[in-house]
């Protein structure tokens, strides 16, 4: 994505900033960086300040209370946390499998003439705007889930609570599938880089011992790249957790917890998108901002974790 030539040769300070011009220049550079840092810290501080009334009113039980009732001002985030976790889990389960397999194919099996255009298409998938995914999900995928995927799953697995109940088309499963499409480029691109960074010696040793190429790829290369690939999945998970518009359009927007994956639900991000401009009381707005704060904190933890894992394999930058 970005050129990384000469990353080892760190830019040394070869001359000191002593002249007035240079001092001014250094001051502006420092100032700009400080402003940048201030913005990020401000983001966190503002989210905490905005959610403070809600934090005071509901305390930690906000996280495990399941009523979301603006009329009586009773707010609990559990239904949204449930919806976020379930949709992200479906997304990462599908995208993880497809993405890792695609990465294995691109890194070790595909001839050049096929690998280049396939990677290109998969990476462009990441450029498609969220709202376009939502549009497609609403008018193409969700009718397809209602009439084809849903009934099929119900026929085979309908005896489990997961696939019982009426199929609306919009709901947890549809949102999960859309998320999978949105994050599969992340999983594929990073996993492919990580796999490609595994030394040739391992591959050659494995082949020399008589393994098939498939055995080499799955039993030698994949285990060696395990940590980095796991990091890629976590990074993708972070995207899925915070994805807003596409999910809002296909999840059905209902603050309920139901076992069925066909049921409409809500996520942390989609409830903010849907209700924020209509929220009237200040405690209602504050509760919504607290959902944003939860989202922020979770995404920071998830991203920090993912980067550590990817760095440990591929090296930083």
């Amino acid at each position, binding site marked *: 994505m*970005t050129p990384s030539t000469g990353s080892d040769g760190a830019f040394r300070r*070869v001359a000191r900033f002593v002249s007035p011009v*240079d001092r001014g220049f250094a001051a502006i550079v420092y100032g700009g960086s400080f402003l940048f840092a201030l*913005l990020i810290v401000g983001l966190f501080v503002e989210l905490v300040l905005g959610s403070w009334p809600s934090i005071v009113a509901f305390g930690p039980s906000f996280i495990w209370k399941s009523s979301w009732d603006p009329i009586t001002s009773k707010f609990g985030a559990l239904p949204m946390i449930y919806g976020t976790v379930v949709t992200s889990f479906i997304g990462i389960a599908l995208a993880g499998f497809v993405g890792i397999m695609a990465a294995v194919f691109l890194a070790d099996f595909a001839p050049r003439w096929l690998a280049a255009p396939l990677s290109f*298409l998969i990476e462009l998938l990441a450029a498609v705007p969220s709202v376009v995914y939502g549009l497609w999900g609403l008018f193409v995928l969700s009718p397809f889930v209602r009439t084809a995927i849903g009934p099929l799953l119900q026929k085979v697995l309908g005896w489990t609570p997961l696939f019982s109940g009426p199929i609306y088309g919009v709901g947890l499963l549809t949102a999960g599938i859309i998320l999978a499409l949105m994050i599969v480029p992340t999983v594929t691109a990073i996993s492919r880089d990580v796999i490609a960074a595994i030394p040739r010696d391992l591959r050659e040793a494995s082949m020399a011992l008589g393994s098939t190429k498939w055995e080499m790829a799955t039993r030698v290369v994949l285990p060696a790249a395990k940590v980095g690939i796991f990091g890629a999945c976590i990074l993708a998970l972070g995207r899925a957790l915070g994805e*807003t518009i596409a999910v809002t359009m296909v999840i059905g927007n209902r603050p309920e917890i139901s076992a069925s994956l066909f049921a409409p639900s809500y996520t942390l991000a989609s409830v903010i998108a849907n209700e924020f401009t209509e929220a009237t009381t200040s405690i209602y707005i504050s509760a919504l901002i607290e959902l944003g704060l939860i989202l922020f904190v979770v995404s920071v933890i998830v991203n920090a974790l993912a980067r550590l894992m990817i760095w440990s394999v591929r090296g930083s930058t």
Partner: protein
Amino acid sequence: MSAPSGNLRRRRAFAWLGTMLALACAAIAAGALLVILGYVVVQGVGAVNWAFLTQLPHPVGIEGGGVGNGILGTIIIIGLATIMAVPLGLLTGIYLALFGRGPIPEALRFLSDVLSGVPSIAIGLFAYAVLVAPLKHFSAFSASFAFMMLMLPLLVRTSEQAIRSVPQTVREGALALGMSNYRATVHIVLPTARPAIITALLLAIARVTGETAPLLFTAFGSQFWEKNPNNPMAVLALQVFTYAISPYPNWQAQAWAGAFLLILAVLVLSLGARWMLRNAMRGLET
């Protein structure tokens, strides 16, 4: 050579199956893009015409109308965001490249990475808290502020790397000729790093072009030709969202047409960025 034993044959069959599975997965991922693109083009291209590009939206029930104000709003909001993000991103990138050792720069890099993973809706809440709530009205400027935050991480990290990748000797040469650090950086190092930085800028613009979530409570949308950034403003992505979830077939058709425009813009920007990067790389090699 004897014929392969049963065990080897089984392993080879298994390898063949596995390879096909991997191929299928790659094909699914790449095919998904083609399917989505195909739908957007087929459903959307028919409704795109001059009136759609240049007219105001019509009220519900009246055929026709366009997204002209949304296109204008998108350009204004992204333009303002770019004007704010580029200097800030460059300065931070220069800082990290020139003074980039020790705990403070490391912390700044970490913060930048953190910011790149923050959901856009949370950034929208931040813009709301600092620019909408105190002024008590929605504004295009608050959307630009949110977009700036979304563009910054990519700009910061890329400009740092691009500046670092300029050979140390180039800078030393400039300083040896008696240039100040300021001149050496701004007139010698930055121009060399420019292609990579412009590539990053194009990618950052592509990213925010389709961004919708933070607009809901910043730009908010408008029915008019709004040009004042202090007022609520129409944005194409927001119009696509509103039209898509509306119950009116006429609006839904316009949502597809708007999505077509969005995808076109994003693809042109992404492909332009790739092309620039390839040219820049070629320039470095020769």
